[in-house]
């Protein structure tokens, strides 16, 4: 080995390494920590499996997406309504008078219909 001379130039280091290598201890872990590791693994796996199958775990993403869609839809409807109400070319084109206290229906150029009270 190329670094063999370097390994031998400090006997104290070699002695310390040998001391650690020669330390004796039971080769198998205590049974209770093996059992704990097995139980912990099952617990973690069950959590992971449950997380994967539970849509609520993913709620931050799908709630955010749903909220965004709702906000966009609301914004678009508001915009359309505003355009509709402020259209300068919108004018009444027909009027259906009614009798018997029923409101009069006014038809506008954009084909929308509004009811006008004729109670007077």
């Amino acid at each position, binding site marked *: 080995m190329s670094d063999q001379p370097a390994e031998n130039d*400090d006997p*104290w280091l070699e002695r310390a*390494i040998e001391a650690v*290598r020669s330390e004796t201890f039971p080769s198998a872990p205590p049974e209770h920590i093996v059992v704990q590791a097995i139980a912990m693994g099952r617990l973690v796996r069950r959590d*992971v499996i449950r997380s994967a199958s539970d849509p609520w775990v993913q709620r931050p993403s799908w709630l955010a997406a749903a909220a965004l869609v709702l906000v966009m839809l609301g914004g678009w409807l508001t915009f359309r309504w505003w355009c509709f109400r402020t259209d300068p070319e919108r004018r009444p084109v027909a009027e259906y008078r009614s009798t018997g206290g029923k409101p009069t229906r006014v038809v506008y150029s954009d084909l929308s219909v509004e009811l006008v009270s004729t109670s007077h």
Partner: protein
Amino acid sequence: MPEWEAIVRRHSERVWQITRRVLGNEADAADCFQDVFAEAIRTIDERQAETIENWEAFLCRLATCRAVDVLRRRYRTAERRQTYDVAELPAKNPPAGDLELEELRCRLRAALAQLPANQAQAFAARELDQCSYEETAERLAISVSHARVLLHRARASLRTLLADLGPDQILNDE
């Protein structure tokens, strides 16, 4: 995926020996043992376990890395004072027998904790766990030449850190 219990039972001895050898006491080794398997189960769930072909190599790598982490943490926080007490044992007049061996072990572990993590991991795999250079490189997922460089640097640093054991003692002893 193989049954988790079978994996733990099949590889528990190997993981235990690595953590116990590096850490030197049963309590820390038991904690580290649990951490290794906890990390393994989380990792394999994220990656989908089918991708792991060699469980022993995977667990040995985790065990070496986590044991060195624990060792570094131990000597950098609460137990630093205690380690220094051990380090202050009279190097000029080392006690004989088991006590001397115990002192050497403490000194080596304290010194190992002061190395950069990758050097300490390489040293633990090669010198304490007695892996070949190829196995050390495989365990750390690096090239053999890189492993040799890390080991060379680790040895150089350890020689400096253990220098106060002194040549006088060698002469006296031999």
